[in-house]
């Protein structure tokens, strides 16, 4: 038995950290998320493409790096630590969908995606309220797609959308005049959500739903992001506890705060165990993998919410300021709890995986 990453993944993880610390330090994250309309750096994403991150998990036969779920978790773990903005995981998942499709359109598009020449995102969600039974909001007929999709994260930046419809998966290239979007402004300033009003020509690429493996990869990737976000947030909290003075002592010497930090650490380390075990099970294609992945996403979502929320609390007044960093991790986490299978959905998937 061995819990440590193998050599390749250890190298992948450390080089990802080095790259992000150098190319996307938190000051840069602040600049792109606060001052650019797209909310992420095109330059940085070009570098990510160059380094192969946009084809990370795709088969070598298709030009990908063929890194498994454990490597994916290791990479998103680092991207979470860096609070890397933008749709990198969504691009990866779009590629995963394309790589499973027949035909040249998908194959050629996939190459452009990996090269970073085109950004292709999935457009699946159709409701702003809680997922429930509702008639499909989008239809495809006679080569045209009609209806509204959203929220789509960073959808306005997409060069093409993979739109789920009752008729199947439809590829919709960005219209010449650009997308007809409504931008949705959430409490998480690092996001760029839009609703997209579709009335455009499209191409039916498949009549099958999005394969489960893609959802599982998405959940593992998101769990990795959450792990990285809470791990970094905990580091900030512990450093602050050691430096901040009150009543003539460092606040880290107060037992109530020590125990809070201990709980944060317990949740962070448990998330680490859960995320990598789930990723490993998926890589080994163990039967229990879907259950373990659902458990990992649900648990890390709650854990990260606690850790990043309490980091704000431990910082006290300054934790509530834009100037200090805790809010960046907290907001990202609160958003991620609802995406890639919300906590509540993952709990249901976990039960179903157990036949309950």
């Amino acid at each position, binding site marked *: 038995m061995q819990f440590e990453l193998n050599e390749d993944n250890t190298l992948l993880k450390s080089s990802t950290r080095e790259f992000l610390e150098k190319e996307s330090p938190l000051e840069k994250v602040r600049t792109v998320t606060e001052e650019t309309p797209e909310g992420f750096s095109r330059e940085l994403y070009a570098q990510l493409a160059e380094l192969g991150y946009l084809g990370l998990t795709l088969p070598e036969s298709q030009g990908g790096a063929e890194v498994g779920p454990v490597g994916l978790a290791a990479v998103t773990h680092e991207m979470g630590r860096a609070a890397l903005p933008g749709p990198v995981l969504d691009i990866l998942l779009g590629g995963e969908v394309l790589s499973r499709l027949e035909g040249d359109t998908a194959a050629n598009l996939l190459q452009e995606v990996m090269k970073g020449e085109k950004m292709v995102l999935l457009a699946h969600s159709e409701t702003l309220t809680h997922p429930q039974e509702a008639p499909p909001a989008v239809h495809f007929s006679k080569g045209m797609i009609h209806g509204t999709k959203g929220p789509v994260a960073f959808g306005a930046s997409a060069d093409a959308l993979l739109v789920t419809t009752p008729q199947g998966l439809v590829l919709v290239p960005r219209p010449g005049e650009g997308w007809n979007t409504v931008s*949705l402004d959430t409490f998480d300033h690092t996001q760029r959500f839009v609703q997209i009003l579709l009335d455009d020509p499209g191409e039916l690429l498949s009549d099958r739903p999005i394969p489960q493996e893609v959802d599982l990869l998405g959940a593992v990737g998101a769990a990795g992001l959450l792990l990285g976000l809470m791990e970094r947030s905990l580091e900030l909290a512990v450093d602050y506890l050691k430096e901040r003075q009150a009543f003539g002592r460092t606040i880290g010497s107060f037992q109530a705060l020590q125990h809070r930090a201990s709980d944060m650490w317990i949740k962070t380390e448990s998330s680490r165990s859960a995320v990598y075990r789930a990723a490993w099970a998926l890589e080994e294609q163990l039967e229990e993998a879907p259950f373990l992945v659902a458990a990992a996403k649900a648990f890390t979502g709650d854990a990260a919410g606690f850790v990043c929320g309490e980091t704000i*609390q431990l910082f006290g007044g300054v934790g509530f300021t834009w100037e200090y960093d805790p809010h960046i991790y907290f907001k990202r986490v609160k958003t991620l709890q609802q995406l890639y299978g919300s906590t509540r959905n993952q709990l249901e998937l976990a039960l179903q995986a157990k036949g309950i």
Partner: protein
Amino acid sequence: MNLRFTKEQEQFRSDLNDWLQDNLVRSWIEELRDPKNNEKTLFDIRRSWQGKLYEAGYLGIHWPRKWGGRGLSIVEHAIFMADTLHAPPIASRVGINLLGPALIHHASEEQRRRFIPKMLSGEEVWCQGFSEPDAGSDLAALRTRAIPDGEDFRLEGQKVWTTFGPWSDWIFVLARTDPDDRYGGITFFLVPLAQPGVEVRPIRQITGESEFGEVFFSGALAKREHIIGEIGEGWKIAMTVLSYERGSMSLAHPARFDHNLKDLVRGVQENGTIKRSDVREKVGRLLIENEVMRANGYRTLATMASGGAPGPEASLEKVFWSEYARRLADAALDLLGFQAQLQVRSPGARQEMNWGHEALWVRAGTILAGTSEIQRNIIAKRILKL
């Protein structure tokens, strides 16, 4: 036992609501939703609303008549706070809540005449100058110094969490007149902001707004005639004023959560999940917890109405409402889905509740005005004697 308001209090309440009918044109959330508004216009709305309230005699409700108050009890004030939830917050809220009691109980006749009326009318807006970067929970660690300069003093230092002051005219400041006496060396000054040696900077909050600010003093003049009480009495005064507002929010908090809960319930009815037993259990728990909060509030008011003064028990209400607010906002994000994350002006946002703002704002509740940790210390030490 009797948790009913008196006839007079009921009368006060219905008069107030009649008056609001006639005078409150737009609710605060409508103003916030209006894209034509900005921080400046919103502040002007608050200021003019305060003027209206002043004319109608709804400010200083529980203050003595001779000092511009209405001479009623904290109960009427609590009713006012609860029933004017949807109105704009007044411009000089902190001034009236904190400085008012200091002036009434510790100031000279002359100071009262000079400051109280203009403060109530909103003609002079006040901000608070207690906290400092290194004196938050540990307020007595404050280091802003008042250096004697002839009759008067010169201020050197920095204050934070002042309610943001570009539109404030005055600040009340705790400053050190004796660096060696932790408590006895603190004095309570009233200082005009429009003078050399004062710089005000906004603090941007995680919500993106800037309701708070920092004030930097470098040789600003603090006149002796503007000292409240005696030199060295500042700490004593500050500690007492903090207690005069006990009970004023005891009805307002649960009323505010009633409003939020109503929107949450409407939301789960709209998205069709209200029949789910998990949703029912969560909503049920939130409903009853808010009702328990209200029971605590009635109890506080009843105790004060029958002459008792709630001491550290106030810590109970602070912990309860601030931590409840977090649970409620988190539940809304869970039960209402993406919609609950939207900011008030975003398409698709709920109209009656600013959840996107609430989800972040609630994080301040457990920190400001005494963190949850400090409140628990107070309960353990002063009540349980541990």
